[in-house]
């Protein structure tokens, strides 16, 4: 199968869905004429016209609200945040309007918000944030975070077709660094289903996004030391795929959670708490978390390197748990 990059996968998903369904359109800053800050929508303006690849004024709350309104009358808007960090400006529209519409008055809000997130790109505190924590406690939202080109495409198509507001966390660090086989035929990756990124028997590592690759790297080293890791790539963060989580816990009885998001109140906390609640007797040791520390994302290279979890961090957590 041909291989394409994570970025190309996102572009293809958008392109195919826009061709297939005239209700899909894109809006955000510089997505049109310019093709987007990360060039995701390059060529779309020429292909779909200025109304379906809509350059907006600099106003995240305004254009996110507009996406919500358009979705209420039958459109399927895809909002591009130039960087995920700017989603904070649209927070109110997302948590109070989009997330609550269906519960409050039965109005489905099929919008996708693309959030180019994550660090390791020397972006500093305002261009590197993991933003899933802003929304993880907000009922009514869905959050996905692909780690491969295959999932990037399949999850984006699924998100566009989904009838709920979906925050699509695309990791900037992966854009041009990850390439993997992606079918030419139409497919979707279901929202709410994790995948086993690596089968193993000794210990489970639950992770998502760019950390899947860090974790795979760690597992490679650990394998050489005779430790067989099972890696669960969550793919969807909200709602969590509890079945997949519990299945792997019951299989290996040991769990390490890895994420780039800061620790306190992170996705890992919920996973750990769920495991504790429902698989307590299966646990052979504590559930460890390998995460970024509770700080903003620092800029300087030695600081950012310290901030982002590394394969060595995963390895030492696994080893510590194996010794437990």
């Amino acid at each position, binding site marked *: 199968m041909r291989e394409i990059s994570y970025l190309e996968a996102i572009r293809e998903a958008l392109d195919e869905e826009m061709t297939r369904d005239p209700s899909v359109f894109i809006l955000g800053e510089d997505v049109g004429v310019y093709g987007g800050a990360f060039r995701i929508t390059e060529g779309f303006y020429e292909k779909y016209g200025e109304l379906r690849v809509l350059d907006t004024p600099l106003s995240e709350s305004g254009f996110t609200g507009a996406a919500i309104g358009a979705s209420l009358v039958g459109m399927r808007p895809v909002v591009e945040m130039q960087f995920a960090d700017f989603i904070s400006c649209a927070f109110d529209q997302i948590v109070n309007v989009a997330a609550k519409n269906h519960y409050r008055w039965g*109005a489905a809000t099929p919008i996708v918000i693309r959030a180019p997130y994550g660090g390791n790109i020397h972006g500093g505190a305002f261009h590197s944030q993991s933003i899933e924590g802003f929304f993880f406690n907000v009922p009514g939202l869905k959050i996905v975070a692909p780690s491969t080109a295959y999932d990037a495409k399949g999850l984006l198509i699924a998100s566009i077709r989904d009838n709920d507001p979906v925050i699509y966390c695309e990791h900037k660090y992966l854009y041009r660094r990850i390439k993997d086989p992606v079918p030419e035929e139409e497919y979707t990756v279901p929202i709410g289903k994790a995948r086993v990124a690596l089968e193993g028997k000794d210990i489970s590592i639950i992770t998502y996004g760019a950390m899947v690759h860090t974790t795979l790297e760690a597992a490679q080293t650990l394998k050489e030391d005779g430790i067989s890791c099972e890696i669960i790539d969550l793919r969807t963060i909200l709602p969590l795929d509890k079945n997949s989580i519990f299945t792997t816990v019951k299989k290996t009885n040991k769990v390490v959670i890895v994420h780039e998001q800061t620790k306190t109140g992170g996705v890992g906390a919920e996973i750990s708490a769920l495991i504790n609640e429902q698989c307590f007797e299966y646990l052979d040791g504590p559930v460890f978390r390998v995460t970024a520390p509770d700080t903003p994302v620092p800029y300087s290279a030695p600081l950012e390197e310290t901030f982002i979890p590394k394969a060595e961090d995963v390895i030492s957590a696994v080893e510590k748990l194996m010794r437990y």
Partner: protein
Amino acid sequence: MLEYGEDMDIKRDDLLQMYYYLRLTRRLEERITSLYHQGKILGGAWTSNGTEAVSVGYAYALEKNDIAATYFRDMGAFLVRGISPKRIMAHYLGKKTGVSGGKDGNVHIGDLNHGVFGFPSHLADNYPVGTGAALAFMIRGEKKVVAACTGDGGTSRGDFHEAMNLASVRKLPIVFFCNNNQYAYSTPLRMQMAIKDVAERALAYGMPNKIVDGNNVAAVYTAAKEAYEYARNGGGPTFIECKTMRMHGHSEHDSAKYVPRELLEEWKKKDPILTIEKFLLENNITKKEELDDIDARVEEEIDEAERFAIESPFPDPEETFTGVYATPVEADENVM
């Protein structure tokens, strides 16, 4: 004689219908207020008392397939758009038969079947949301328009600015209304903005604006109709300031001591129902008996709505857990 009729191009039936909706709005909200004081409506009660002509006027001027992106003093719009007093009353009582099935309450009324976007409490949030519907109409080449409304206070919010700007840049088919009732809770207009007329806000967007007497339903209707036509034909958005006065407290638990009594006295004379009534009678458009008939019909409808609401069942407690998603991912496992 009132100016009301001058260069007015409104059919008799429409005038009578608007009279009916004004009455219906007033009386429905009065009933809601009294149920609130009886402890049957929980949480709070806000009314559009004294300002009903704004929402009745702008909603009555809409076509069937247009959209109203409402705010919380738009009871008139809910009714004009065809959401029944029964369902509204049941909604206020938290009943299963209410607009939201009990999930939401009081002023938070929305129903896509009637082209009404529900009000999110956060003021002016519906300005961008309304803009989005207008954008959809433009993308699809549909000749529909959106009416979006907020209060004078709401115009101070960032979302107001971002929506007005986007609508103007893209010449979207939307008309923005401001119910300028001179107060935002206790905050008078002069502490809300340093301009004389809210309409001046539109200058920042190169958007046409208009000031109308918000107590004159015909004036609101006419200005709205005109702006809708302009928008429908690609002219772009208009901002319409409706000058009126909030005649009650911010809500039923606010005595509004901060409002000068003389101001209320002055506006009492300009009551929107009195105004249209006087006009209809003085111009021999109708007779007292016809209006009395309408009033009687209104009373009946409201009695019936109350009866219906009171007799309706509450939602089942299990419904707490349903409806979060339009497409649930899977039955959530029970954790405890």
